[in-house]
């Protein structure tokens, strides 16, 4: 009996062939009737396939290292293939082979320093956008102690409202963006008045509140998916502009605009925190809520203000993110993707400190963009998140945070 099982096992494990497939496309057109030859390491041909009318081909081959090549004579007139493809084929996974057609493109190699400068500008821009969106998280945490996981959805909502005003209602992009930020203030106010103030009144603990914010985030995200779109949607009159060049620095108008708006808004927030009465009250509540309340500050009013401000800034962050990072497109998950980077930024800077959040977010933005020098672009967010985990190990209070906040 046991032997039988073993034999069956060996037979199953003896599965030495697998399917390899691909689709031949030259300049957007499928290539039909091309012959693909598969050769093993000793140079012997092991299989052959011909592409169908839609360019698709599949071939059954033995597993192992194989070379896939296209027979040049079988290609239509004027089509050339760049090179053959060497691939180690294994069973138990999809094996696909991609051929490139046309002349081998010799990329004009940009010197390293130019790439570094370009990515630094990009990173600065991205970091400033993260900071604009994240100031709200930091202030809300400072004044109420809530880690708001639903903040990413406030960011998405900002961009979505701008899109609705712009595309559905046909307003110019700038007006739509301004209106979206105003709606963002309202959304922030509604969040506080509808959910968080009642919860504070019920004396719901901070951890249950955190879990509630997760529930709210999931609901909002999928409501956006339902009523907006499950695909990326472009703004109607998004200006596509060429890059301006100042010496080694090259930047598009829209990115320059993004940086300028972010800097102005962030300086404005800093001045408000330093100079105005409400700003001082916000810092006082962050520092010591009870002391602030007993010295005559209306804590609930300050918190309402913080939520409105946070909502508005998140909406602005969403609009800027859609304009710059996503190239004029809005996507239903964009805020959630940004949320973890916002957390990384404000943790790096020091949870609950406004200036720390700014500094941390810029560092995260730079890190995300500059990491593409070393790693593949589809991994660039990983660098930002790893720094988050790393910071928790070496300096959990962040750059500007104080020790007693973390215990």
């Amino acid at each position: 009996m046991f032997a039988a099982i073993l034999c069956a096992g060996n037979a199953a494990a003896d599965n030495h062939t697998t399917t390899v497939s691909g689709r031949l496309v030259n300049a957007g057109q499928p290539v039909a009737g091309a012959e693909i030859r598969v050769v093993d390491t000793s140079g012997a041909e092991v299989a052959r396939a011909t592409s169908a009318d839609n360019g698709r081909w599949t071939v059954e081959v033995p597993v192992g290292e194989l070379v896939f090549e296209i027979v040049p004579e079988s290609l239509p007139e004027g089509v050339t293939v760049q090179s053959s493809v060497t691939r180690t084929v294994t069973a138990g996974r999809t094996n696909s082979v991609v051929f490139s057609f046309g002349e081998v493109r010799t990329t004009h190699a940009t010197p390293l320093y130019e790439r570094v400068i370009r990515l630094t500008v990009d990173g600065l821009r991205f970091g400033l956008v993260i900071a604009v969106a994240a100031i709200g998280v930091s202030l809300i945490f400072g004044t109420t102690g809530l880690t708001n996981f639903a903040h990413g959805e406030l960011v998405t909502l900002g961009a979505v409202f701008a899109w609705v005003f712009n595309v559905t209602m046909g307003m110019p992009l700038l007006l739509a963006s301004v209106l979206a930020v105003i709606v963002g203030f309202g959304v922030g106010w509604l969040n506080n008045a509808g959910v968080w103030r009642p919860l504070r009144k019920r004396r719901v603990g901070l951890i249950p509140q955190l879990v509630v914010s997760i529930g709210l985030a999931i609901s909002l995200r999928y409501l956006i998916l339902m009523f907006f779109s499950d695909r990326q949607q472009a703004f109607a009159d998004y200006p596509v502009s060429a890059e301006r060049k100042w010496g080694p620095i090259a930047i598009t108008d829209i990115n320059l605009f993004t940086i300028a708006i972010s800097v102005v808004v962030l300086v404005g927030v800093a001045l408000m925190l330093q100079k105005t009465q409400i700003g001082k009250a916000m810092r006082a509540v962050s520092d010591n809520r009870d002391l602030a309340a007993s010295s005559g500050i209306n804590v609930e009013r300050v918190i309402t203000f913080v939520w409105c401000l946070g909502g508005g800034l998140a909406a602005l962050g969403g609009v800027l993110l859609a304009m710059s990072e996503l190239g004029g497109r809005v996507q239903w998950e964009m805020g959630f993707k940004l949320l973890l980077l916002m957390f990384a930024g404000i943790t790096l800077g020091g949870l609950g400190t406004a200036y720390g959040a700014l500094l941390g977010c810029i560092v995260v933005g730079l890190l995300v963009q500059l990491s593409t020098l070393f790693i593949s672009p589809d991994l660039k967010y990983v660098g930002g998140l790893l720094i988050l985990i790393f910071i928790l190990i070496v300096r959990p209070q962040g750059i500007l945070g104080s020790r007693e906040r973390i215990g």
Partner: protein
Amino acid sequence: MDILGALQASFAQLIGPSAIFYALLAIGLNLHFGYTGLLNFGQIGFALLGGYGVGIMTVTYHQPLWVGVLVGLLAAGLLAILLGIPTLRLRADYLAIATIAAAEVLRLIFRSTTSDAVTGSTNGLFGFADAFTRFSPFDSARQYSLLGVRFVGDDVWAMLVGWTLVLVLCGLVFLLTRSPWGRVLKAIREDEDAARALGKNVFVYKLQALVLGGVIGGLGGVFNALQTKSIHPDFYSTAQTFYAFGALLLGGAATVFGPVVGAMLFWFLLAIPDALLRQAIAGPDPILPLTDAQVGAMRYVLLGILIALLMIFRPQGILGNKREVQLDG
């Protein structure tokens, strides 16, 4: 409207393989959140390591299945140690942020084209479950009827193994939480300083709970990989953690059977409106003007509302004791 049909479709969720998967995740989360008060928002990352442990060792490195299971569980335990050492000394939300970030990092790394040679990137891995289904006493080609719901032979086998596993783990949790070790965990949840004052090394206990719960999460990933016979990186999205979390809250945190009851009822309850809505939009003259994708999104909206409302109005869930779940940040 065919309410009976909707109920029957939902009934499959009650005992089907997905209930087992979420039950396993939730049992792990229960040790973290329910008994120790730790916020692990990256449980799916542990499951990812469990699942990919099996997939990578068997498909990429041609090892027998048991090596894959072992590697997967070890990797999940290791992740818990790596995340726990820096964050368990800090306030609870630091662990939450670190774990959710770690789970997302893992998913991004495993789906990246850079790691294609090992993980199969977005295509995932498959064809490693033969060593598991080989022991099945059920006929893979046949459908078996369980109380009116049909399951294929391999799924019946997976369910038999899975529910046995769930019961064994429930027994383990029962024994552990009534042991001196379990009482220390609860003491930490209630008052960390008091536990410390009694001479308990709070950090070590927390780390042990995190590792144990994480390994159980990894086991969930192993089960899912063997049952679905394939692994895809985007299955392991952060939302999955919150399904398990929702299931735990529904069933009742800090109870032995809470996560299991929750996992069974969770998809059952969400599947009923889903099935009814699908009926409402089907046919040439639909009652509601919604698309398929919108109905699909509806269940997540309900899930979020369910989590929030449970947390506010009935934090003890169905089976729990309110005094046990008064958490404070």
